[in-house]
């Protein structure tokens, strides 16, 4: 939204698209599924992080981490 920086939302979307492309090429179905779930909550994280010094890539990782963290609850991922 600023004078010189690219719009945050389009940069976040671009980072997510890169992740999906990589997951597709590497045929990592689990990563793709994780990324799609992360996309669903990325805007919520954007809302919370707008006035902080975070990169779009940081937001993408945070979204992925939050999905993983939820899955880990109760030891779901270990199996």
């Amino acid at each position, binding site marked *: *939204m*600023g*004078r*010189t*920086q690219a719009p945050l939302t389009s940069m976040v979307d671009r980072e997510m698209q890169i992740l999906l492309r990589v997951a597709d090429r590497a045929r990592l179905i689990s990563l793709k599924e994780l990324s799609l779930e992360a996309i669903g909550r990325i*805007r919520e994280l954007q*809302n919370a992080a*707008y*006035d902080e*010094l975070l990169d779009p890539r940081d937001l993408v990782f945070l979204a992925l981490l939050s999905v993983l963290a939820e899955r880990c609850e109760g030891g779901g991922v270990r199996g």
Partner: protein
Amino acid sequence: MRVEGYVVDAIPGDGYVTLVLDGHKAANVRTTFPLYAITQKPERVMEHPDVVDHVEEVWRDLDGREVRLHRFELRNFRAYRYVSRRVRTVNQLPTPLSQTLARLRAFPFKKVRITEGKVELLQEDELAFPQVKLASVSTVDWYGPSRWGSEYVAVLDGKVVRGKVKDLKLKVDVAECSGISCDKIDAPVKLRMEERRSPVSVRGLVEWSLLSRTPIRELAQATIGKVLTTNEAWVALSRKIVVWDVVPRVEKPKTLTQLKGADKGGLVLFPKVGCHDQVVQVDFSSMYPSLIVKYNISAETVDACEDLTTEIGHSICFRERGIVPEALSWLLKRREALRSLDPERAEAIKWILVASFGYLGYRNSRFGRIEAYELVTYFARRTLRTAIDLARELGLEVLHGIVDSLIVRGSDADQFSSKLTELTGIGVKTEIMDWVVLTARRDGLPYPGRYLGRTRGGMKVKGVQRSNQPRIVQEFLGELVELMEEAENCSQLRSLRGKGRELLSKYLQRAVSGSPTDYVLWVRGVPYVRGPMGFYDARYGYGGRYLPYYLNYIRRVYEEVFGWL
């Protein structure tokens, strides 16, 4: 000789100025015209036969440094143009004519009495609108307003009159006109619509003229920025601060991390997509100008001392009131007072207030500075974040937020607005909505720039209707919004789906067999129609339409508005 009336225009002459008053009255008043210059050889300027006097004065620049100026008094504007091209001239804003009128106390659209060449300003209510005759006349063709049209639409005292241009006969004080209609109007001031660069009506222009103390003729082609800067320049002039023509201001160096922190816009929250019942929209009134006034943000107060330091690395000095805050605080008060009295004029002031923030960051702005601009957005983000935190503290659910406005749901909304004003020091306006629809993008992710809601005063629609949509699409959206207004809650709104579909088919049919006007869309004042070979200029005649473009357009906007169903 004695004449009395409102100053409508001023025409500079040779040693005098002709004041044109309402009712086609006029009187000459003897005067000279001031020119401020920086020169080492004032005697050379004095050699000009039309330069009658000269005084050396001490002024200051924005940083407080002393500047020695020479004020020359000239007999006419011919001399002004000649001298200003040869010496470094400053204080050219407010315009030399406005400065002359201010010295004579013959302010534009103020009531005066002129007796034997002497002007007396007659006291009137500050908010009263001058009793002058205004008219707005536009010529029209089949596609809409056109300078070549043979018919006209005139607005006179709020009444709309239509007819053939050849039959037009009108005598007013100020006329806004287009095409050949201008030749048919008898008025001392005619403002050509084709040359207008401002978004306000002729009544709004009169308000701009009043508050910037500048003749309306000089504002006819002006941008909002000129009106804003003139107001600021009056403050500078009253403090004997030089108004430069070009301000060589360099942004202070920043690291990339600092730039990332400071170079941000207002806070925008992504909405919770869907239809929500019983919500409240909370708006900060004139948030950016209010923040500028509250935090004393102006080019000369930013980083001048460290009375208030911020996380983005800029500080603000409160020792002296800034020029921009002083100019804006007056405008804010005037707008507030006019809001219920005269909405059209309040709207004209709103435009100036809206531009005031952007102008702080504009590189050619005389009283702006990029750090000041960044401070405004910083405080705006902080203020909205404070509002969000308070809403959550009170148990309200925040559904949406854009820069200076929040949509919340919960029972404590009244308490919320009063606490928010107390906490932030900025006025807050609340509006109850029976329901609001917050929409998504085509990929399903929330889209913050578009919403529709039903308030007690009618529908509130943002980001749906645009001025560059084809007429058929605009009318379709108008009817669709009207239909939605029938619903009292979200469940009733959902039940309107069938009627919405009917409306869609009606307009799809109309697109197939519509009239040429249906297909016209306006982009930057030019009417276009989408033909089979692309867009073409409608002013050269109607040459067919490309049907799939219009059908897809109608379907797309329907999806935007009703897609959430």
